[in-house]
């Protein structure tokens, strides 16, 4: 059942037969019933953790117990979580020549060390979305800042704030007017500043208290705010990078079908409403981008076709 990755919808070739499905359903049903019975008779009201957190909450520097647990009592978990996010971001970074991943040259260019945020020339914008974003994006930014600040005493915090900013970034990219380049130096700074700040604070307080990640009680509140601020920027940048690389990266392995080069180039725009006009301007860079692909026998012959079709 896990042999090949199936991408065709409604392809009933190697399906598990009905008998197998019924047996599987019965087995899973039995497992579920067993789990429910076990959980019904589990007594988990004897946990001491909530009372422990409540006792030490005044020493943690914040009033919100979840934020206190995330950034003070269990700060090591949060440090590693930001590290995991950064690892996934590096794996999905555009322009990294892993195998045959080729970052297409978008109009306006996705040059390395370009600008982080740049205007797309001759953009096919979505006018309604762009108009509403003039109001929406500043409100989202203010809301994210509020969520970061109020995480100390009310529900909120760094992750929610970063997610809001990433959502604003996704909307901005969808409008078609602005594109993000995550290989610029500013982008690299934003992606890593969360982890760097966290590690610096973690090691820095060891000089004062002797234990890594143990904040001195008087400094706990501003330290948590500094860490959360940097983490917000980092989380927003990483989540936006995840969306950006899924939405604008195409992969070319071997260029045999010349039609294959036309269609993915239509993808290189931000997924705005209509892509006809910019796709014509993308034929040129797609022909030029044949060179770095893995199999190099055929592209020279096929380079003529896309440019001929594109003119």
């Amino acid at each position, binding site marked *: 059942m896990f042999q090949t990755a199936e991408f065709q919808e409604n392809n009933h070739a190697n399906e598990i037969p009905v008998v197998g499905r019924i047996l599987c359903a019965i087995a899973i049903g039995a497992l579920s019933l067993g789990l429910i019975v076990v959980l019904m008779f589990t007594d988990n009201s004897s946990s001491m953790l909530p009372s422990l957190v409540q006792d030490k909450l005044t020493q943690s520097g914040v009033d919100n117990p979840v934020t206190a647990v995330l950034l003070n009592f269990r700060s090591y978990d949060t440090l590693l979580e930001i590290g995991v996010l950064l690892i996934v971001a590096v794996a999905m970074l555009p322009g990294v020549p892993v195998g045959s991943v080729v970052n297409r040259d978008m109009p306006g260019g996705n040059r390395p060390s370009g600008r982080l945020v740049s205007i797309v020339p001759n953009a096919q914008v979505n006018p309604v979305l762009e108009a509403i974003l003039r109001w929406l994006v500043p409100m989202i930014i203010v809301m994210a800042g509020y969520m970061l600040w109020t995480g100390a005493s009310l*529900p909120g915090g760094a992750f929610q704030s970063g997610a809001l900013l990433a959502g604003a970034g996704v909307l901005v990219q969808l409008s078609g007017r602005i594109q993000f380049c995550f290989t610029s130096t500013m982008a690299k700074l934003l992606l890593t500043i969360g982890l760097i700040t966290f590690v610096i604070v973690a090691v820095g307080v060891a000089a004062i208290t002797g234990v890594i990640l143990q904040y001195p009680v008087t400094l706990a509140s501003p330290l948590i705010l500094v860490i959360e601020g940097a983490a917000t920027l980092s989380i927003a940048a990483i989540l936006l990078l995840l969306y950006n690389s899924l939405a604008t990266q195409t992969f070319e392995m071997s260029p045999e079908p010349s039609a294959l080069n036309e*269609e993915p180039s239509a993808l290189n725009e931000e997924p705005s409403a209509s892509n006809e006009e910019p796709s014509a301007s993308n034929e040129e860079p797609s022909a030029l981008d044949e060179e770095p692909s893995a199999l190099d026998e055929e592209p020279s012959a096929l380079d003529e076709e896309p440019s001929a079709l594109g003119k």
Partner: protein
Amino acid sequence: MGFDLFLDSCIVIGILTLACLCLATKNLFTAIILFISLGLFVTIAWVRLDAPDLAIAEAAIGAGLTGALLLATWRQLRIEPADRDADTGSKSGGHNVSNR
């Protein structure tokens, strides 16, 4: 106590129904949209379980960003197969939303 339990059972029935429909529907786009709705139902469940931080995070990350990622991938997967249909000769288009 009665109304609370009724509300919780409505939410639970909604979650389970959405889960079954999400995996059983023929259209992949429908499945993705149902998954986003499942995320929003789960957000309400977090509110009912006294977890407001989780509700904010789930609404933004679980429902919003995961939905955006899934739709971006869906679009990627739809573009390429149309190239191989030399007989139909159809461009991928990508504007018609339904897969029917």
